[in-house]
């Protein structure tokens, strides 16, 4: 627990935490205190920012601030869900393969490598485009989660494999513990901080991946997301028209989200990984 306290003393960690918390608050509390409307036009297309509409309107004349907040919610949701799915799959595969070793490990590693080699973006694109009508945020998140777990599987596997040689694991084995008991009692608790960091990175990846495929026009069908906002801006030549409010805030939000998560992760790594500690 003193480790966690040490974390809160690091400026980097605090910066990341504040930034991320800020976006989280905006996403969760925004709709409650602000009047958000993503369905009705409030002005002409690409109207410049006014006192009432701080970021003007988009190509359809919808209030940009509303779009951004809803888009932020969507991106966070997708990122989070994708992160959870990818971390779960990756951890499960990594921990069993890493602990058991031998044939099981070889099979799981081969499978992981296979998934690694398949360009997930292409899979995403193919799956997404084949589901023209049904692309919901949840579906996108699940697809992302199921295609980006390879990194966490490898990372967790390496950690689990090194834990295998520990004395308390050997003692658990000669106590007759089953593999499941050893994995849950002797291996996972020691990996928790690591898995948490993996989860943070997977969430960041999820957010970025969603933005990417939305930019390619394969985003959610009937909801807003930050990537979709960027795509719309691109499609409707907001750049040429000088309507910076149509894409810069969205870009900014994506950057802040991913940056803050990476910074939190790096700070945590410095604290939790003894070899990196100064």
């Amino acid at each position, binding site marked *: 627990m003193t480790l966690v306290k040490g974390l809160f003393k690091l400026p980097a960690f605090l910066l990341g935490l504040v930034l991320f918390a800020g976006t989280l608050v905006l996403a969760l509390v925004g709709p409650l205190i602000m009047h958000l409307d993503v369905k009705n036009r409030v002005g002409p297309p690409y109207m410049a920012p006014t006192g009432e509409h701080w970021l003007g309107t988009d190509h359809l004349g919808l209030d940009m601030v509303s779009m951004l907040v809803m888009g932020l919610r969507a991106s966070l949701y997708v990122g989070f869900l994708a992160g959870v799915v990818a971390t779960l799959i990756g951890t499960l595969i990594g921990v069993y393969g890493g602990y058991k070793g031998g044939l099981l490990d070889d099979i799981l590693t081969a499978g992981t490598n296979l998934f690694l080699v398949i360009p997930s973006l292409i899979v995403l694109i193919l799956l997404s485009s084949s589901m023209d009508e049904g692309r919901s945020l949840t579906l996108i998140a699940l697809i992302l989660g199921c295609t980006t777990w390879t990194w966490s599987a490898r990372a967790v596997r390496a950690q689990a494999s090194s834990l295998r040689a*520990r004395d308390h694991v050997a003692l658990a084995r*000669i*106590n007759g*513990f089953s593999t499941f008991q050893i994995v849950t*009692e002797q291996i996972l608790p020691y990996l928790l901080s690591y898995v948490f960091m993996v989860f943070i990175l997977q969430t960041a990846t999820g957010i970025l991946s969603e933005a990417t495929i939305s930019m390619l026009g394969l985003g959610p069908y009937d909801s807003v997301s930050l990537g979709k906002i960027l795509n719309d801006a691109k499609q409707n030549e907001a750049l040429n028209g000088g309507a910076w409010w149509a894409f810069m805030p969205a870009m900014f939000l994506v950057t802040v989200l991913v940056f803050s998560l990476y910074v939190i992760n790096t700070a945590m790594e410095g604290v939790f990984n003894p070899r990196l500690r100064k």
Partner: protein
Amino acid sequence: MSDALKFEAKGLSRVFGHGKKATTAVRDVTFEIKDKEIISLVGQSGCGKTVLAKMLLRLETPTSGELLFNGKPIAAAGDPRNHWRQVQAVFQDPFSCFNQFFTIRSQLKSSFRLFETKPSDKEMEDRVDQALLNVNIKPKEVEGKYPFELSGGQMQRMLLARIFILKPQVLIADEPTSMVDACSRASILDYLMKLKQELSMTIVFVTHDIGLAYYVSDSLYIMHQGEIVERGTPDDVTQRPKSDVTKQLLDDIPDVHREWIKRDAPKPPDPPTPV
């Protein structure tokens, strides 16, 4: 010490890796361990003694050769839990032997999972209490405590308490005193002897300390580069060594009673100045 053989090894080998990168940790080892005997596997780091001990513990499988326990091949015994009900171990570092996330008492209790029929909860608690008393620890002292809250000496005794609970026939003790202060060593050895007496155990010590091996063992085996290079009673091995490895080892160990490095005699020092 009866004549029944607890362990019999014939041409036992363990090779890691394959092809050019293969390393032979244990090479063609043959020996017998009698019931209720105390033997020591002695050697420097890398000599293969730990890998051999793990094979006796069924934590490593031999790549060739035969290993029998109570007359039957170990590998064929089916459920390894049967083996572990009879062969147990204590390791070198007591802190790394226990999980830092669970209380020490619950970890001792979890040893009962090895039993074929788990006793009632009350009986398990009683037996844990009894095991703790056997190593001179009052159960109240460690109630609700986690490993990091106990001292090194207490943790060492926890490893032994676990053996009192499991009551195996054979105990493999891997460097049981190398992390212990010299003054506390003898009490660990005392507990081990107590265990041996009460449970009629056979003990296999794995150590680099030939002085320790000499003191405790009935038979001594010196290992070097995976092979057994010398075997016999402690006196045979230390007073009448046959192998060059043993001779070199005995020569290299600093001992109070013997000359160790030849030096030109330094001039006798003046006694230290009084305060």
